[in-house]
């Protein structure tokens, strides 16, 4: 008889589990080697706690009432639970805090396209260390984790979450026009972006050119010079932040792994400043992401700068398999 599991969930059998555990062990060792102690938090949280971190938690995949009538939700990442943990359980301790996790999370995704509703994230949070050095430390741990997973060709995209918000303020674009432009950027719709920009009244041609050119600017540090040439205070500030982070990355010897990307925009609400995405040439999907969230801890009553990343464990495993296949070897 066939007894199904809910959509987007699955069983794992020993052969796969052995490989996943080996991958977890190498990631855990990399986190520990950088001084990031592992924590665990409950899979379920009060929905109010999650919503305090990100309004969009209203869309959590699984929500339900407990026997007292309290609304609970399955966590959709570990960043918000760890923000809660740091501001409650560690309130007497002195920052910075270096924490890591390998944990399951839950999202309401369409399970037909390789994305699961239940999945495992492996990542770190560095709390109490500001940009640029805190960001660079997180990226160097990320780089070590990718190496530990055998993904030596994987690349980290580094962008700035505040760039477009600040730029649109500077250009005086507000209301629907602003929302439309940010939506087109977040959905990678560059054709729609051009239409949205053209709909804005009284935009001079230099500003129009800046808004259309920035999303395509990605590559080495020369990208920052090209962007600065476009002019404007918002671009100047964002490239300044990125330049400082990049300099710190050079000092740590991990800059060659990083591609600067002014088109990057992540869809979570809590990011401020640097944002990250992880790519591997063997896989068409992103392996993970992260960035700075300097205002998140403040929402839980402990105002500390913070940054982190999360890798999707199952996708890392797929990328490992693909890399082995493309290298013509089976290890």
């Amino acid at each position, binding site marked *: 008889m066939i007894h199904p599991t809910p959509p987007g969930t699955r069983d794992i059998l020993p052969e796969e589990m052995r490989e996943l555990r080996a991958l977890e062990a190498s990631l855990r060792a990399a986190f520990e080697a950088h001084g990031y102690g592992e924590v665990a938090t409950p899979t379920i949280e009060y929905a109010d706690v999650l919503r305090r971190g990100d309004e969009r938690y209203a869309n959590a995949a699984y929500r339900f009432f407990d026997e007292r009538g309290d609304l609970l939700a399955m966590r959709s990442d570990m960043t918000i639970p760890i923000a809660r943990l740091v501001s409650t359980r560690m309130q007497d301790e002195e920052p910075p805090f270096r924490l890591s996790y390998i944990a399951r999370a839950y999202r309401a995704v369409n399970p037909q396209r390789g994305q699961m509703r239940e999945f495992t994230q492996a990542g770190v949070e560095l709390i109490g260390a500001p940009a640029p050095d805190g960001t660079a430390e997180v990226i160097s741990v990320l780089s070590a984790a990718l190496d530990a997973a055998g993904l030596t060709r994987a*690349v980290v995209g580094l962008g700035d979450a505040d760039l477009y918000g600040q730029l649109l303020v500077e250009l005086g674009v507000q209301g629907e026009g602003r929302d439309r432009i940010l939506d087109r950027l977040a959905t990678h719709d*560059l054709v729609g972006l051009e239409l949205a920009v053209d709909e804005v009244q009284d935009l001079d041609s230099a500003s129009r050119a800046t808004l259309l050119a920035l999303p395509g600017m990605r590559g080495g540090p020369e990208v920052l010079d090209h962007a600065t040439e476009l002019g404007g205070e918002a671009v100047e500030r964002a490239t300044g932040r990125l330049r400082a982070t990049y300099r710190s990355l050079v000092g740590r010897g991990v800059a060659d792994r990083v591609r600067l990307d002014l088109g990057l925009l992540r869809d979570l609400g809590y990011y401020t400043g640097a944002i990250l*995405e992880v*790519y*591997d040439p063997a*896989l*068409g*999907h992103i392996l993970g992401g992260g960035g700075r969230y300097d205002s998140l801890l403040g929402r839980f009553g402990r105002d500390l700068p913070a940054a982190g990343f999360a890798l999707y464990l199952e996708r890392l495993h797929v990328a490992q398999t693909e890399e082995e296949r493309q290298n013509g070897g089976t290890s």
Partner: protein
Amino acid sequence: MPRVVDLTRARSGGPLKLALPRGALWGDTLDVLDRIGVGTAELRSDSRSLVFESNGVTLVTMRPSDVPTYVEAGAADLGITGKDVLLEQPDRIVYEVLDLRYGACRMVLAGRAGDNALDEDERRLGAMRIATKYPRVAERHFEETGRRAEVIEVKGSVELAPLSGLADGIVDLVATGRTLAENGLEVREEIATCTARLIANRVSHKLRAEEVDDLVERLRPEGR
């Protein structure tokens, strides 16, 4: 033997892979490729093969509605398909990089000419009965205009639905309007204008940026 890691860490695997739509956009797509120096003689003469190599690009051919699937998964780096296909698959995570501007069509709501069944449905029954190959486009259109519709998905000739009484109207893509007229249908509302679009895989767009941008610039329609 371990392969030498190349310095750019570019996405591996030789030439860029471009997914091409067989069907209505096929002819114009081949003409555009010829114009930018990607020869298509082989594609024109061989209708059986699915994969072709031409001037440094791998061309893979498929149904237009499959193009976003291949590009999202990274099985193709780039693809050409209609905006109608993208509108129907809004949750695909791909870069829409270029409006190629050929293959222009209108997505419309059409009803039987000289017949007010659509309006009557809405007035008396609270919902229109609409047949379409684009259920998500149709549902979104009625939602955005504050109306309700009973959307019936069909796979074949959608014009048959109002003729046989399955539905009172259709949401469909119209190029010249001749098929509508021949079946006694007329356009009631225009929903969107659809042209051919170039889309890119999210990872290829980052890891093969120079090659992708180069192809985008070559494909960019003139006059803008």
